[in-house]
């Protein structure tokens, strides 16, 4: 990176941070900090945490997201909160991935999915305006997006036809994958790739298999109260109407642990402190994580994080 490119990227990052902070200040959302080194890691089989040695004590884990700590703050009575923090995920390195990346994560009490997703899209819109990139917001359900781009409703397909569809789209050994992974592949390959890039899309109501930490829909058990934001051809944010049922959450974690053992992935213990906090009572809330580096890519109009980050992962 030349000196002028360096200064350009540093200044743009500073503007993005300042704009985000003023966005939340205007809405009276409180900025907080939570530990980056936690005593537990996420069980999600698709996320591998970095393990950090701590002399002869049990190891610590670099947080793959501040979600659990922020929810514990909410349980303890915190108001609407946001955080701009580094998050860490092993092996996620590529043009649009860095194993160490910056998240803007926030939680809004009493918000529903429509409110939190609208707010997220508005923040993205404001951040893009820093360089006069003005994109409209469009809301579409996961189902309708599939219908439009694929001409069929993915959620209604049998496992067999999902496998056939994925194979046709070039997935090798599709028959070995569960529904959720097939959804991931087909949606990315056939839907996200075809979404117009000059629109901020709110895609909402994901399949129940992909609920993660979201509540299932009250009106349709096949759907989860989860949304994602897409712009520029890729994912920018992921949010939930947060699951508050401790037993159901524990059950989902238990499932993760099971899948980990089946796939030979590192064993991860369930974060019982988090479960205990849920049991104590998480207030009704919606939350979202926005990848700041991804937004930076669009605003800077470059293709790869290498052109953006002063210290790229491969060249530390």
């Amino acid at each position, binding site marked *: 990176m030349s000196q002028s490119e360096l200064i350009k990227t540093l200044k743009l990052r500073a503007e993005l941070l300042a704009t985000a902070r003023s966005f939340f200040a205007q809405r009276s959302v409180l900025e907080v900090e939570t530990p980056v080194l936690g005593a537990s890691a996420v069980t999600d089989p698709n996320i591998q945490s970095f393990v950090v040695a701590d002399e002869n004590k049990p190891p610590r884990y670099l947080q793959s997201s501040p979600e659990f700590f922020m929810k514990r703050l909410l349980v303890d009575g915190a108001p609407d909160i946001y955080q701009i923090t580094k998050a860490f995920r092993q*092996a*996620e390195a590529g043009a649009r991935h860095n194993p160490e990346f910056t998240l803007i994560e926030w939680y809004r009490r009493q918000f529903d999915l429509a409110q939190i997703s609208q707010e997220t899209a508005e923040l993205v819109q404001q951040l893009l305006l820093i360089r006069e990139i003005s994109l409209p917001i469009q809301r579409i359900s996961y189902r309708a997006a599939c219908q439009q781009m694929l001409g069929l409703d993915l959620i209604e397909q049998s496992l067999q036809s999902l496998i056939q569809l994925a194979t046709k*789209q070039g*997935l090798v050994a599709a028959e070995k994958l569960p529904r959720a992974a097939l959804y*991931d592949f087909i949606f*990315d390959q056939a839907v996200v790739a075809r979404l117009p890039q000059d629109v901020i899309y709110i895609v909402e109501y994901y399949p129940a298999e992909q609920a993660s930490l979201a509540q299932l829909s009250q009106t349709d058990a096949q759907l989860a109260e989860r949304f994602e934001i897409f712009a520029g051809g890729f994912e920018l944010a*992921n949010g939930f109407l947060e699951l508050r049922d401790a037993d159901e959450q524990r059950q989902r974690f238990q499932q993760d642990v099971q899948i980990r053992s089946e796939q030979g992935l590192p064993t991860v213990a369930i974060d019982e402190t988090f479960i205990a906090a849920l049991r104590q009572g998480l207030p009704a809330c919606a939350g979202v994580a926005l990848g700041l580096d991804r937004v930076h890519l669009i605003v800077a109009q470059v293709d790869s994080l290498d052109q953006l980050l002063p210290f790229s992962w491969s060249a530390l």
Partner: protein
Amino acid sequence: MAGYNTNEFRSGLKIMLDGDPYTIVENILVKPGKGQAFNRVKIRNLKTGRVVDKTFKSGDSVDAADVMEVDMQYLYADGEDWHFMDQNTFEQHAANKTAVGDAALWLKEQDICVVTLYNGAPLSIQPPNFVELKIVETDPGLKGDTATGGIKPAYLETGAMVRVPLFVDQGESIRIDTRSGEYVSRAKES
């Protein structure tokens, strides 16, 4: 058989898929924030040369293809096969018509080619980027016509046809870019 995990994927890696050997041209990690990671690759079939898009679940393993690219000297053709020699081991390999393909147009005895061996047998031949070949037949050039842009067909000792400037004569050797099949210049006097 040896295998590779997707996290070892990089361009140039040789893998097996559906019974055919492939080389990875491009490898991209695709990973939703919540969800399954995939390696999206462009791979070239080493038998057909066709490039296809495929996706592997990250963490999966694939068999390695027993494919090696070796510099070899082209020796001669016997009407059926083309014969090459590994200059380090002096081992000789016979490549058939399928393996040689269009490369036959540019093969000149003693030139060094890249021979792709699959399970020990030649799978494809890559001629040098530039070769010098003799024109065996072309229309006579016109005197003084060295500056105009006219071109004419010329037939080379290998049977290839190349379009050459009008001033180039039968019996001369010319330099050709084998990647485009285009005339570059007259060969240097040797």
